[in-house]
């Protein structure tokens, strides 16, 4: 059982008391967990196939070639065709996910031209994009990628930013001075241009993109950490710890960091939001993840190029607004929960 100290418990209670933020947190967490199982929600692979008495769970793992189910091909089974066939003959059962399309699957028939409008009959609840891929499926997978990207970015940015900021505040002196200058220079490098240059030479993958963004993104948090550390290091309890003979690392990790973490946490939701927006922006500009990766930015681009197919731009804008709104509500609530004053008056 996790035991929280009284301050943290109080903050948690306050956070819970702020309904809007609390529910937003629950919804976003639920969405994230659901998106981790996106393969079970939107997929061209069936959830369960019962064929000739055998049970198959094709969702995860290797592809099952069509031959297995009596088709004459060795590539991946078309489960929708299998479902139709088995439903007719009654030889077995196929259970498809709620959205029976994968993010990369092109659903095209001769003589009809994508993008298709939303339709319940076809199973494209939000329609298809210009290549005939399901918009909902791409939104779900795009959400997962954007969020994971953003969380990874956050982790690395904070890892580097907090360490350096903390050391700057703790050691002070020349180290502080040198790093201040480095960071000032660093944060003036126009990172979008760097990405554009890199993207015009090689197509960046997921990890390269994380790498580049961390390379330029870690500076932001250092200032806050530096200030917080300076403040904490001057406190009496740090002096006391030092007097007892605590080592530097003990002071930093056991005393200063936990006490300055509140500054950090208030920034987290906003960093997540900015991570999502920057990936979307890069994808929109064509410097992001390579096609055909499902991505909100790419969908947004298609949407703006095809304003006559309104469902494209509507779905992605709605999804994006929703997620960014949730994140902002959470951020607001956290900030308030960590504020030691219960009431503020603004004039």
């Amino acid at each position, binding site marked *: 059982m996790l035991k929280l100290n009284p301050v943290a418990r109080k903050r948690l209670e306050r956070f819970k008391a702020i309904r809007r933020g609390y529910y937003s947190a629950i919804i976003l967490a639920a969405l994230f967990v659901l998106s981790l199982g996106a393969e079970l929600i939107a997929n061209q692979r069936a959830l369960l196939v019962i064929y000739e008495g055998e049970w198959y769970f094709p969702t995860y793992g290797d*592809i099952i070639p069509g031959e297995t189910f009596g088709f004459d091909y060795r590539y991946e089974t078309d489960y929708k065709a299998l479902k139709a066939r088995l439903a007719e003959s009654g030889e077995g059962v196929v259970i498809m996910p709620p959205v029976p399309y994968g993010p990369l*699957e092109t659903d095209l028939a*001769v003589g009809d031209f994508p993008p298709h409008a939303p339709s319940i009959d076809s199973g494209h609840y939000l329609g298809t994009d*210009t290549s005939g891929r399901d918009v909902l499926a791409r939104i779900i997978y795009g959400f997962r990628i954007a969020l994971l990207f953003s969380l990874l970015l956050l982790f690395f940015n904070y890892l580097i930013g907090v360490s350096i900021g903390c050391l700057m505040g703790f050691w002070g002196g020349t180290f502080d001075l040198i790093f201040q200058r480095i960071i000032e220079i660093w944060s003036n490098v126009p990172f979008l241009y760097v990405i554009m240059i890199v993207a015009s*030479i090689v197509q960046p993958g997921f990890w390269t993109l994380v790498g580049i963004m961390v390379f330029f993104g870690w500076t932001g948090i250092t200032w806050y950490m530096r200030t917080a550390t300076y403040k904490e290091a001057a406190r009496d309890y740090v002096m006391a710890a030092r007097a007892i003979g605590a080592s530097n690392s003990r002071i930093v990790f056991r005393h200063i960091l936990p006490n300055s973490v509140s500054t950090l946490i208030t920034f987290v939701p906003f960093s997540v939001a900015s991570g999502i927006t920057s990936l979307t922006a890069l994808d929109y500009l064509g410097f992001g993840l*390579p096609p055909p990766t499902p991505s909100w930015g790419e969908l947004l681009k298609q949407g*703006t190029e095809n304003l006559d197919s309104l469902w494209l731009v509507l779905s992605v804008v709605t999804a994006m607004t929703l997620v960014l709104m949730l994140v902002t509500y959470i951020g607001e609530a956290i900030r308030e929960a960590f504020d030691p004053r219960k009431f503020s008056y603004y004039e």
Partner: protein
Amino acid sequence: MNRFALFFAALLFAALSPTVVAAPETLPKKLNWQTNLGDPIFASPEAVRGGRFRSFITTFPLTLRLVGPDANGSFAHYLRANALALVDFHPNTLNPIPMLATHWAFDEDGKTVYYRLDPDARWSDGKPVTADDYLFTLEFMRSEHIVAPWYNNHYSKVIVEVKKYDQHTIAITGAVPKPREELLYEYGLRPTPAHFHQLDEQWVRDYNWKIEPNTGAYQISKVRKGKYVEFERKRNWWGDNKRYLQYRFNPDHIRVKVIRDINMAYQYFAKGELDTFPLNSPRFWHKKAQGDIYDKGLVGKIKFYNDVPQPSSGMYLNEDDPILGDRKVRYAIAHATNVQKVIDTVLRGDYERLNSQYEGYGDYTHPGIRARDFDLARANTLLDEAGWQERNGRGIRVKDGRPLSLRVTYLSSNHSDRLVIIQREALKAGIDLQLQLLDPSTGFKQILEKKHQIAWMGWSGGGLSPVFWEFYHSDNAHKPQNNNITNTDNPEIDRYIMEYRRATDKAARVRLAHKLQELVHEQGSFIPTFKVPYTREGYWRWLKLPPWRATRTSDSVFATMGSTGGLFWIDREIRQRIEDDDLEHAKPSLIIDETWRK
């Protein structure tokens, strides 16, 4: 003794510089000078001069040079269009017509053509175009300083000599005898302003942004880097009273604006900030080109069938790649490429399947060659035979632990939806195609440096007969910066290419061209995709066209320059009225011109 010394000196001189002939030569006596002023003109006498025509390109040119590194971009055609040839071909009758030369005559050796230069011809700086400018072209094109191996080779091995008889008479000799029309076409030469160039190691850099004097109707008047290039119509252009140049090139200014995104460009067009817009893409023609401006008749649509060599769009497989070096794999990829599905779905049935790299060359086009069909069974058999039997968990074929993954480099995000379908279909054969979208300049560079695996692109077609040496001769393989982007290196193809280049008799050339097309088809390193035997454009109705609209060989109805271009004109009064919203609404206009449909 003295006479001997002089003789030897002259001999030595001649041996050292075979092209720069000092002593005036005498023309052969029995020359049959020809010209052609009898074909119908294809421009309209009703054309009115004036106005500014606004057009766009998607990337700013990397240079304004006509040759040298990066000089082969999409902007180059504007520059080349204003470098007139000695003789051009009538766009409808395909007969030779005079340009910079008024007359031409053929030597009995079958490889030399004599030209009488038009004494009226002027460079844009006012200097006359003389025989020396043609001599200089040879020196220029052979120079190492221009860093253009193709030109170096062409002007030494294909065109071997230029002779000057007087200021306005020259002869050009090619390496091998050819049919007469081919002589005019293949051994043609454009003059290079000798007074403008200073050839040295710095040339490529020094002349990168210099504006070379030209002979055409337009000259660049303004360059804003990254933004636009503006051309200005020459006042009192020397060509204005020549039969095939009069009534043409009517706008006073042509502004070529850089708009990096084609959809953005369409918005510019819809707002009337561009005069025309290419609507070849089905998405534009069927879906985007709709709405008020069309319904009110302010913007017209035209679909004009032409009859020209087709651009060779398709997938170029780099044979130097270890996987693609195997012919069976190349065949298998062709059989796993579902072009028809792309045509039937995202392309709305508008495009047609291209069958070979050499369509639209009349007799030269092999009638029997068909592109390899989408046939998964064949693809599977071929890949099994090539040793790619195993499949990994994703269903991708594996050989010696290496998956059958190939990078497809392409240059326009508009092609993503086509490629996504091809990618999904290829996966069925266990081939993993990874799409790599690059900026056109960067991507083309990568392809020319032969660092690609599969290049999704097209070369524009042209000429009277197909060319093979550039694309398939081993001289160009395994070296950067030439058109053999498949790195084809096949002795049999080499042998036939050389034979084809030497042949003069048309029947023999046709036979060899057919044989070569068979061999190229067998080589399997090019997978043809689409052809579009027409041009479709949208245009603001202030643009006026002659009654025949365009010519047999027009690849754009509203081309501003070039040998079929400059036929339209701007009606400034209507333009003003449209812009003031003072025009009575006209009926929507859709023209489908099938005059030249095959």
